[in-house]
């Protein structure tokens, strides 16, 4: 009886709390269908849904539709995910399994870079990319992902690799495999689930990495969805309904991936990230 009551209380609390957390999102969905005059009303659903908000928002720029901006962003994402997944595993195997001089030192440096504020490196990086003629291209956004995909992911994979039994490596060694062979045939296949986590996070974080996008992309032709939204916001007379409609669409890819890979998400960080 007592435990039933406590369960009910839990459910009640969790339901109410989830609702409060999601309420802005629900309101957002409704608001994306509203007329400007109706927007300031706290009702969720509009009297007459303006489905044309989506159509007009999609075509808000006279030059390009949002299809163009989505295409740009996905192209950039393709590079980022590819770079991160391809290199993070390689680096993580080095740190997680091989003994070499100064390994401890380099690993500490790797951990330290996670704490380094990006502001310190951003100016010289910009100068460098500017000198190389890469400003206003995707190179400065994509290239950094090809250097191990970021300290956090390397760390995540190192933790994962440490959890793989060494017997497997030893068996392969007896069969005459080199360290490269062990990596390719033993470790890499086992890393698949962790690499999915890397891909998901890379995708979602790069989608939201507004700072780098605003810094390096200047011509509308190359704009990402985020930059297109900013252009929308900076218009003189904002059509809020349309803007909210496009904003809602812009989070769609991340949300889709989140739901497809939900298990990986919460449990991925929980188990791989914090195995101690």
């Amino acid at each position: 009886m007592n435990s039933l009551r406590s369960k009910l209380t839990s459910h009640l609390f969790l339901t109410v709390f989830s609702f409060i957390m999601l309420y802005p999102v629900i309101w957002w969905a409704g608001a994306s269908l509203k007329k400007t005059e109706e927007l300031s009303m706290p009702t969720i659903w509009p009297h007459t849904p303006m489905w044309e908000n989506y159509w007009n928002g999609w075509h808000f720029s006279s030059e390009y539709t949002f299809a163009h901006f989505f295409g740009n962003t996905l192209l950039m994402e393709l590079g980022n995910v590819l770079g991160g997944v391809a290199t993070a595993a390689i680096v993580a195997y080095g740190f997680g399994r091989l003994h070499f001089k100064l390994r401890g030192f380099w690993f500490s440096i790797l951990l330290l870079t996670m704490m380094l504020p990006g502001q310190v490196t951003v100016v010289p990086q910009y100068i460098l990319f500017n000198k190389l003629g890469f400003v206003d291209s995707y190179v400065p956004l994509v290239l950094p992902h090809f250097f191990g995909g970021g300290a956090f992911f390397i760390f995540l994979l190192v933790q994962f690799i440490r959890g793989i039994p060494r017997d497997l490596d030893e068996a392969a060694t007896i069969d005459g495999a080199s360290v490269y062979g062990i990596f390719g045939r033993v470790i890499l296949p086992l890393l698949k689930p962790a690499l999915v986590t890397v891909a998901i996070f890379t995708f979602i974080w790069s989608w939201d990495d507004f700072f780098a996008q605003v810094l390096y992309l200047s011509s509308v032709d190359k704009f990402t969805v985020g930059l297109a939204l900013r252009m929308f916001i900076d218009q003189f007379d904002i059509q809020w309904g349309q803007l909210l409609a496009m904003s809602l669409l812009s989070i769609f890819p991340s949300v889709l991936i989140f739901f497809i890979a939900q298990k990986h998400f919460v449990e991925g960080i929980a188990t791989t990230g914090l195995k101690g």
Partner: protein
Amino acid sequence: MAATANTASGNEIEKKKSGGNRKKKGAHHIAGYVFISPWLIGFLLLTLWPIAQSFYLSFTEYSLLEDPVWTGTDNYTKIFTNDTTFTKSLSVTFMFVLFSVPLKLFFSLMVALALNKNVRGMNLYRTAIYFPSLIGGSIAVAALWRNMFGIDGYINQVLAWFGIEGIGWISNPDTSLGTLILLNTWQFGSTMVIFLAGLKQVPQELYESASVDGAGKVRKFISITLPMLSPVMFFNLVLGIIGSFQTFTSAFIITKGGPINSTYMYAMFLYEKAFKHYQMGYASALAWILLTIVALLTIINFAASRYWVFYESDGGKPK
């Protein structure tokens, strides 16, 4: 993300292994460097070299068009003695960090405790509660926030129901920073997930034996949960402070630093100095001041941690 929580125990395992196997197992010096080379090259090229260059540039005047001109400590002198925007943006940022970090920690810990139960449908609740954090940093949410907290926005309409006359939350300098802090707190998801993972690591036996000794819920929370969670708390605190100092998108989109610089966050100030006014030297000096502040706070955090962070491997007590 999970760096500090892991290094303590991780390193020890490493030591044991390498100690026992040193003779048997060959080292792979060359292969090791081959494997870490992607990261190493990236680190040297995009981190170490930029850090050094940034330090040099902070003593120069540089507009990208001409070569940097050495000006000694002029940038720093000007920043500290003759730049009210610097003082303003630094104090705004400190206020932001001071409120948003503890709020987020407290909030995410409470939520993690609520979610750490075995009830049916828990995954659904977790998803719902994590959801805002998934999208929270995006420009889309910044747009939403700007609308909701506007003078005719949703928040004021709700307040009107209760007979309260709302204000322009974003256009009022007294409340604008508060809206950004609130937005930051709403995105508590990843902090919460880390707490949740920490809670799962607490051995159930501890609670059971405490029950046998007659400890109540509050007592258990204070004597077991909090100490066992302290490494995770520490980790979230350190990264939370570092992250909050770099808040950019929300200030840049929602308030544009205004009104009257009330939300002119340090990262935004630095961005505008560098990429709007093209004062690269000045911006580099600002970056180094930020780095120094963050490093000092982190060192203080680490030093203070020995008094409250509890590691199992230390034999049961904070040093």
